C-alpha cells in the first residue's frame, strides 16, 4: 500500500515536471532584446548564397565597430518564402527591427502600415545619392519607406563566338537589328556553324517582368502612379511583335531545351542570346568557364527600357528602438557599406557614387549599372503578386498558343479581359 502511494506520488511529480517544462518552453519563446546595457537589433533577411551572407555580416561588423553599444543579429528567414516568414513574425510580434523588403511587396507593406516613413531620418540631399529610378520603387505619396541596398537590371547576354560565326558584327541595338540578328543566328544554326549543341537563337522566361522591357521600349508602361496600363496600345503592339518572334522559332523557354535556367542553356551552347541579370555572372563563371560571352544594354525601339530588381532596407513599425534602427538602416545603405557591396560584385550598389566603383572593378558588367538610368522597378503596385501571376498567364497562354496551338491569339483581347478581371478582383 505504502509503495502504491509512493508510486502514485512520483507519477504526479513526473506529470508536474512535464507540465512545467512545457510551460517554460512556451513562455521562453519570447525574445530578449536587452543584454548588459547593450541594445540588440534584429536584421531580417533571406539567404541567397554564402557570399551574400558574408557581405551582410561584413557590413554588420563595420556597423558594430562604429556603434559599440548596438549589437546586430541577422534573422535569416526559414523556408523558401521570405514574405511569408516576415508576415508571420509581424503578426506574432517577433518582427526584426529592420528588414530586407523586395520591391514587389513593398507597396502592400506600406498600404498595411507595416513600414515606418523615413522622411524624419533623411534630408533631400542625402536621398539624391541614390539612383532616382530605384528610390521611386520604395515611395508612396512622395514619402520614402525604404532605402534600396543594391540592384540588378536585365541586360542582353550574348555568345560572342556564335555572333562571329554567324557574321554579326555587334550586339543588336534596335528591335530591327534584334530581329535580323535572330534570323542570322537561326540560319547559321541550321547550317551547323554554331556548334552541335545549338538549338534556338534566343531563350527567355515567360514572365511578364522579363517581357516588360519591350513594353517600355515601345513607349508603354505596365504600371505607373497607382494605375495599371498593361493593355495600352504600346503594350499590345509590343506583345504581338514579341510573339511574332516566338512564331518564327527565334525565342523559346529554357525548358524547351531541357533546362530550368537561362544560364544553363546559354552556358551549354544551346542558345546564343538571353536577357537576364547580374546573378548569372557567378553561375556562368562556375558552370561555363570557357564561354566567351558579352553583356550589352537591351535593344531599344522608341526608347530604351529595362527592369530594376531591387531590395530595400525598411524599419518595421511594430519593432522597438526606431532611432537605433534608423542608424543601422542608414549605415547599411551608406557609403561605407555600399563600398563593400561594390567590391563583392554580386549586385550593383544603389548609390550612384559607389556604383561607379563597381563599374571600375567590373568593367565587363558595366551594362548592368548603366541600364539603371532608363529602367523601372519591378512592382505593379498593391497586389503585385496577383497581377504578376495574371500577366504571366497571358504571356504563357500566348506562348503555348504560338508553339503548340493555332498561332492566332492576339494581345489586345487577352489583355483587355485580364484588365477587366483584375478590376473585378480588386
Amino acid at each position, binding site marked *: 500500500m505504502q509503495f502504491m502511494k509512493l508510486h*502514485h506520488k512520483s*507519477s*504526479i511529480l513526473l*506529470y508536474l515536471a*512535464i*507540465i512545467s517544462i*512545457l510551460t517554460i518552453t*512556451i513562455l521562453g519563446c519570447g525574445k530578449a532584446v536587452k543584454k548588459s546595457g547593450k541594445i540588440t537589433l534584429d536584421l531580417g533577411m533571406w539567404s541567397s548564397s554564402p557570399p551574400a551572407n558574408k557581405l551582410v555580416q561584413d557590413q554588420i561588423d563595420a556597423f558594430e565597430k562604429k556603434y559599440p553599444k548596438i549589437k546586430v543579429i541577422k534573422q535569416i528567414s526559414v523556408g*523558401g*518564402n521570405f*514574405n*511569408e516568414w516576415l*508576415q*508571420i513574425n*509581424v*503578426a506574432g510580434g517577433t518582427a526584426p527591427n529592420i528588414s530586407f523588403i523586395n520591391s514587389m511587396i513593398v507597396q*502592400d*507593406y506600406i498600404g*498595411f*502600415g*507595416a513600414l515606418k516613413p523615413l522622411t524624419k531620418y533623411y534630408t533631400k540631399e542625402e536621398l539624391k545619392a541614390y539612383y532616382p529610378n530605384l528610390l521611386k520603387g520604395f515611395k508612396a505619396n512622395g514619402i520614402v519607406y525604404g532605402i534600396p541596398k543594391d540592384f540588378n537590371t536585365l541586360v542582353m547576354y550574348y555568345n560572342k563566338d556564335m555572333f562571329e560565326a554567324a557574321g554579326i558584327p555587334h550586339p543588336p541595338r534596335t528591335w530591327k537589328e534584334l530581329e535580323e540578328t535572330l534570323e542570322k543566328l537561326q540560319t547559321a544554326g541550321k547550317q551547323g556553324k554554331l556548334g552541335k549543341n545549338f538549338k534556338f537563337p534566343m531563350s527567355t522566361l515567360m514572365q511578364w517582368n522579363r517581357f516588360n522591357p519591350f513594353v517600355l521600349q515601345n513607349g508603354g508602361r505596365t504600371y505607373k502612379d497607382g494605375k495599371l496600363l498593361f493593355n495600352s496600345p504600346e503594350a499590345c503592339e509590343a506583345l504581338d511583335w514579341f510573339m511574332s518572334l516566338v512564331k518564327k522559332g527565334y525565342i523559346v*523557354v529554357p*525548358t*524547351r*531545351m*531541357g533546362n530550368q535556367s537561362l544560364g544553363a542553356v546559354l552556358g551549354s551552347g544551346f542558345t546564343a542570346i538571353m536577357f537576364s541579370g547580374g546573378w548569372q555572372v557567378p553561375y556562368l563563371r562556375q558552370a561555363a568557364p570557357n564561354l566567351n560571352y558579352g553583356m550589352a544594354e537591351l535593344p531599344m525601339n522608341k526608347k530604351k527600357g529595362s527592369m530594376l530588381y531591387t531590395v530595400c532596407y525598411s524599419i518595421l513599425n511594430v519593432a522597438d528602438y526606431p532611432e537605433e534602427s534608423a542608424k543601422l538602416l542608414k549605415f547599411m545603405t551608406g557609403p561605407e557599406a555600399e563600398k563593400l557591396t561594390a567590391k563583392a560584385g554580386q549586385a550593383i550598389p544603389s548609390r550612384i557614387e559607389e556604383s561607379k566603383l563597381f563599374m571600375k572593378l567590373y568593367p565587363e558588367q558595366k551594362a548592368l549599372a548603366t541600364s539603371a538610368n532608363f529602367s523601372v522597378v519591378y512592382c505593379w503596385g498593391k*497586389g503585385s*503578386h*496577383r497581377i504578376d*501571376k495574371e500577366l*504571366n*498567364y497571358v504571356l*504563357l*497562354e500566348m506562348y*503555348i498558343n504560338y508553339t*503548340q496551338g493555332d498561332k492566332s491569339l492576339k494581345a489586345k483581347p487577352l489583355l483587355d479581359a485580364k484588365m477587366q*478581371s483584375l478590376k*473585378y*478582383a480588386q
Partner: protein
Amino acid sequence: MKTAISRKKRKETRDGWLFLLPFIILVSIFFIYPALDAFYLSFHKYSLLSTQSEFVGIHNYLNAFHDSVFIRALLNTLGLMVIAVPLQLIIALCLAMIVNSRIRGKSFYRTAYFLPYVTSVVAIAIIFMFLFKDGGIVNSIIELLGLHSISFFNNTHWALPLVGIMVIWEFMGFYMIIFLAGLQNIQQSLYEAAEIDGANKWQQLINVTLPQLKPTIFFNLIISMSTTAALYGLVVVISKGKGGPLNSTMTMLLYIVNTAFDDFQMGYACAQGIILFIILFSLTIISKFIFKEETD
C-alpha cells in the same frame, strides 16, 4: 468501505484527467484555437500585416465561387482525388497481397515499396522532373517509338496527371503497409473454410479478403483523400510555387497559401480553408456511411 471505493474512483478520475491535460492543452493551443480563429477570420477582411480586421459577412465565401483560380484549384484537387485515390488504393492492395504471399525476398520488396513514402517530396519531385523533362529519359523513349516528344511540365494537359502519378508513387507504400497489417489480421481459417467450400482465389478475394479488410480500406480511403486534398509540397517544387502552367497544377492548399501570403488576404484564405474542410468532412461522412456496418 463504500466511501473508500468512491474516493479511490474519484482519485482515478482526477488522475485520468490530469494525464489527459497535456494533450488537451496542446491540442487546444495548436489545433482547436487556430481552427476556431480561422473560422472567425473567414468572415473578416484581414491580413497578417494589418492591426485590425473588418467584418465582411459571407463576402469571402461568395468571392471564392466567383474566383476562377479558386474554382480551378478546387476542380484540380477533386480531379486528383477522384483519379489518384482509387488507383492508389488498388495498387497498394495489389502490392500488399504480393508481399504477403510466399514469394522470395519479401522484406526487400516491402522496403522498396515503402521507400518513396519516407523520401522527401522535394527529392521525388526532382526525380520526376528529371525523368519527364524535355530531352529526358521518358521523352527519349517516346521519340524512340517514333512519337512526338511531350513537354510534360509546360503542357496544361499533362502537368496534372503527372502530379497524380507522383502522388500515387509517393504514398502507395504507406497504404500497402496498412493493407498488409489488415491482411495479416485475417484469420487463416476463413480461407481454409472457403477452400473447403470450393472457392477459387478470385472468389476468396471477393468474399473473404475484401469484406474482412473493410475497416482498413475505410481508414486508407480517409487518409488518402485528406493527403491528396492537402497536396502542397510536390506542386510547389514542380511549379515553383505558382501552380503552373496556367494554373493546371494549382491545388487548394497551394492557392490558400498563395492567397494568404502573396495576396495578403488571410481572411479570404481562411474562408477557402473552411470550404476545403467542409468538403473533406462531407466526404468522410459519406464514406463512413458506405462502410457503416464495419466501423460501428
